[in-house]
């Protein structure tokens, strides 16, 4: 099952938000879920990652040693986490910011031009939403519709303009992966 997910990128890309949305959506689908961020001193531009497990069964350990799926938003994160993905697992990566190919041949790769699509939608900041839409559509970890509903909970109180951009970015990501 593709249920151990690591999100990684640089601080400011909304990496932790990606993880929270996956966990929130998982919970809304009555699944078992845990979210664990890298924590402590962090800065915009530094590295950020978090682990999410979404499962039909009780989650024993919240730790993710060997992710089934990695969602990679920048180059250094691909270098760091490409080697640890489970054999047969999935690498989704942001080709807008990463200009190399995945070297491993025992994993499945989905290329997502997340920043370009986000720019087309009208908000570079929504690149993380494009990535989420793609993984939800491709792997069905959670439904795209549930992710969109989760936005209302996790980003409660944010302006409607931003919310619409995020929704649109998710849908575009999903369309890309369909």
């Amino acid at each position, binding site marked *: 099952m593709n249920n151990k997910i690591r999100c990684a990128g640089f601080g400011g890309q909304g990496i932790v938000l990606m993880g929270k949305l996956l966990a929130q959506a998982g919970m809304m689908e009555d699944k078992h879920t*845990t979210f*664990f*961020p890298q924590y402590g001193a962090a800065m915009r531009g530094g590295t950020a990652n978090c682990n999410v497990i979404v499962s039909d069964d009780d989650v*024993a350990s919240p730790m993710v040693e060997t992710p089934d799926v990695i969602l990679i938003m920048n180059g250094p994160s691909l270098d760091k986490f490409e080697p640890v993905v489970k054999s047969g697992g999935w690498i989704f990566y942001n080709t807008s910011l990463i200009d190399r190919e995945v070297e491993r041949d025992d994993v499945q790769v989905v290329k997502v031009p997340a920043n370009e699509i986000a720019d087309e939608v009208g908000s570079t900041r929504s690149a993380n939403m494009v990535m989420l839409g793609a993984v939800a559509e491709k792997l069905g970890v959670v439904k795209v519709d549930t992710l969109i509903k989760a936005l209302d909970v996790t980003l409660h109180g944010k302006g409607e303009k931003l919310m619409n951009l995020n929704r649109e970015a998710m849908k575009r990501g999903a369309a890309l992966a369909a």
Partner: protein
Amino acid sequence: MSDRVLMKGNEAIGEAAVQAGCQCYFGYPITPQNELTAYMSKRMIEEGRVFIQSESEIAAINMCFGAAAVGMRTMTSSSGPGISLKQEGISYMAGAELPMFFVNVMRGGPGLGNIAPSQADYFQCTRGGGHGDYRTVVYAPSDVQELYDYTFLGFDTADRYRIPTMIAADGILGQMMEPLVLTEYKQPTDLPSKQPWQLGDPSTQEPIWMTSVHLGEGKLEAHNLKLQKKHDLIEANEVRYEETMLDDAEIVIVAYGTSARVAKAAMLKAREAGIKVGMFRPITLWPFPNPQLNALADRIDNFLTVEMSLGQMIEDVRLATCGKARIHLHGRTAGGVPVEDDIVDQLKKILASKGDEIIRNF
């Protein structure tokens, strides 16, 4: 399951404390428990209760003493280095029989250490930490729901026995998010009244002698024996633990908190590989489940303690089992977290070993 909310462990403790009627929170920031202090700074004010970010940990714990002395439901929280600073006050509160609930979200030590998850304050939590002949009730939850639930119990047990109680968590439990049911707090109807001992308005109340100093000959010994009676009662009534897959087990993993989560996953993996392994999870670290582990050692020869410290809880397991079994150690330290496959490998090594050999992972 639709009434669940997704919450961080630190925040779940905070919300539970608010629900449990915590009237005063005093704290000083430290990673990895900052979200708890931040949460209280918002919620306690919303509820019209007392929140103070003190100038130091020592100030915070002495504010706890004052608030508890006048009968307030009182709380503080920190991580290892801060709890060390608070030990003097905790010892004084234990001596003066003041109820208080506190939280240690453990990080790597010794010294300022690091901010990574750890369980290396086990000795500090269970051996008093401060000076003198006293005990602290220690709960060790292993998921976000339990952090919430045991916060309720922490306040109630503190009031029931007039004793400081605590939750020993770690950076992972504090930082992780999990779905949580925000159950309603119901105060037990049999909690004793604080009226006979709490300080009140001096214009209407007779003076009450509240102290932890007893200088007269034999006075302190008599006082400590009274405390001991309370400790005996707690040992008889408040032990909590969880047993999993022990019926046919040939080896038992003993683990608490986050380590128990990883150990459980390892146990399930090992079972798939045909290893008859079960798990015993102490939920109270003091009182430790001594009789239960002792009984297990009558029929099981090998125990493996899994802890994020280099052999602290193992001492309690040895004491509980009285030399009847071999007690092995899987210890990680200073941010190292046990890995499922490493535990499974060690289980195999232990079952292949003979005689008195003790196997440890480092």
